């Protein structure tokens, strides 16, 4: 069987259910692939891993991938799994925030590592200068800053951290949320990226095609049966921390970000969505994520087409 190593962006969770389902149900094996799924984590940069030849394909967010391209690691998008952004800012009402104009003078939690650019773009749009108008804190892996009232708002994913806040006992009615998608600063999230040089090899393209096809099959299953997907994800978690209840809810929310699941279009990167993301990234205030338009070289449909066959 052909070996494929995929590097995830984060810890094993329903965010990556498609891959685990495909693995668990033997879709990869059926496609003649021997797939290794490497979990990610806060300190894992998929870009570094693929540049260090530790993976064939990585799950990454587009801002990160395009920044890497400029920094000399030519990543190419071969599929866009999530066609919607799940990124949002979650605030406590008690902190006095009810609309973006209340941000002034507040402390806001932001994820770094590439994810700060859409945020900075947004703040630039709102006319806030970080450091003077608003205070930014580099958010860790959890939602404590909000619970301990260290920040008025924190970054959350609709499928994950938001629910952790709720689980901690904060009523949804006490929360205010701002979706990046709605604020017009969203960028594309989980997509699959490979090194540009490798795409010259037709055998690699064919292999990736098989990988995509099996993966999409896994995603379709996961979206259809969140409970089953959650079981598979929990089984794959070697830290013993994931619970089925949480993962099932996460899967249900992730499903909302793959609006084309079950259709032939699943995983297809819409050029328009790509352009939109690039525009957001080029305009992120004083220090944009990318300084020049990467152009069409930053994505390819060749692999997706091979998978669709």
């Amino acid at each position, binding site marked *: 069987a052909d070996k494929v190593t995929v590097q995830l962006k984060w*810890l094993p969770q329903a965010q990556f259910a498609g891959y685990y389902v495909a693995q668990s149900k033997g879709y990869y094996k059926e496609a003649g692939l021997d797939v290794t799924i*490497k*979990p*990610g*984590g*806060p*300190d*894992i*940069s998929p870009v*570094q*891993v693929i*540049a*260090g*030849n*530790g993976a064939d394909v990585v799950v990454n967010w587009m801002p990160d991938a395009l920044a890497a391209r400029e920094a000399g690691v030519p990543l190419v998008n071969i599929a866009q799994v999530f066609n919607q952004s799940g990124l949002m800012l979650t605030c406590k009402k008690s902190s006095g925030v009810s609309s973006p104009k209340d941000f002034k003078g507040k402390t806001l939690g932001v994820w770094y590592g590439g994810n700060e650019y859409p945020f900075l773009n947004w703040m630039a749009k709102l006319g806030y200068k970080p450091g003077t108008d608003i205070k930014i804190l580099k958010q*860790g*892996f*959890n*939602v*404590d800053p909000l*619970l*301990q009232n260290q920040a008025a708002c924190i970054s959350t994913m609709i499928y994950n951290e938001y629910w*952790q806040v709720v*689980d*901690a*006992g*904060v009523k949804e009615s006490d929360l205010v949320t701002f979706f990046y998608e709605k604020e017009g600063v969203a960028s594309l999230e989980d997509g699959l990226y490979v090194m540009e040089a490798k795409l010259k090899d037709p055998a690699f393209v064919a292999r990736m095609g098989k990988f995509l096809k099996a993966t999409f099959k896994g995603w379709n299953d996961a979206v259809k049966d969140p409970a089953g997907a959650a079981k598979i994800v929990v089984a794959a*978690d*070697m*830290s*013993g*921390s*994931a619970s089925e209840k*949480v993962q099932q809810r996460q899967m249900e929310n992730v499903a909302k970000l793959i609006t084309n699941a079950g259709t032939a279009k699943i995983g297809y990167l819409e050029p328009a969505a790509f352009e939109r993301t690039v525009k957001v990234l080029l305009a992120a205030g004083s220090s944009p994520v990318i300084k020049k338009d990467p152009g069409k070289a930053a994505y390819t449909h060749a692999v997706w087409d091979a998978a669709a066959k």
Partner: protein
Amino acid sequence: MRFAKLWQMVIMTKSPSEGWVSRLLRDGLPVAVMLAATLLIWYIGAVWMNASGAIERVLPHDSPWNWQDLLAATLDMQRPVLPAPHQVALDFWSSLVDWPIDSPRNLLFHVAVTAESTLWGFVLGTLLGLVLAVLIVHSRTLDRALLPWIVASQTVPVLAIAPIVLVILGSLGFSGLAPKAVIAMYLCFFPVTVAMVQGLRSPQRIETEMMHTYAANWWQSLWLLRLPASLPFLFPALRVGIAAGLVGAMVAELPTGAVAGLGARLLTGSYYGNTVQIWSALVMSALLGLALTMAVAGVERLVLRRRGGQT
């Protein structure tokens, strides 16, 4: 039987003639009192630190509550700022007994994972430290050129660059256990090198000159004089080293995908907001550290006993 005897030798701290009762009283009582004090402070701290969170999120906003409700709430929070000792103890215990030993939900499973990389790092680090020390003591060039850089090497925050180290090692084909062991090794070797340089130089002039009058060669001086003389320096360094190696192994678990191990357990505990899990992993890692240092101390006692019980 042999094992029992061995074990007794390992745990023996004072001369055998001293009664274990008086020993227990002398050494155990203070520890017990301090432990009790710690627990008390812990409980008070838990109530104190969890109070505001409990008022905000747990206690009803619309109906009245009294201080007993508050007390009960602070000691039984889902997401406490500081979990109460009994919460930690319960979580700790249930992880040990409610799950099979090979389940990722059993802390011992993670202990095994972390201990493995710690031990590998410890063994490699000790070897590296020994070799470096012998070279430094042997060669003036290395002494002058290398030793300052070995000191400087420890001011590089390896823990901070562990992810980079991992990627670099990964690109060289090392993955899985190896990178974790390497980072543990990096933290282990330093105390060993420093102590062994000191230890190998500890023979007095009179002793080295005595070997000289016997026309002993370099290797004989090393084996018969310098190494045995350095043992009292080596063991304290090993105790420090294995604790440092544990820290290294746990840190290295984060950027390896936090798959398993106590470090991963801590991280995911923090990530899933499971404060109690963090604390039981923390307690477990402290216990593992204690067990490892005690194991080294036991080996030390055995070795020193073999050479006559005095240094």
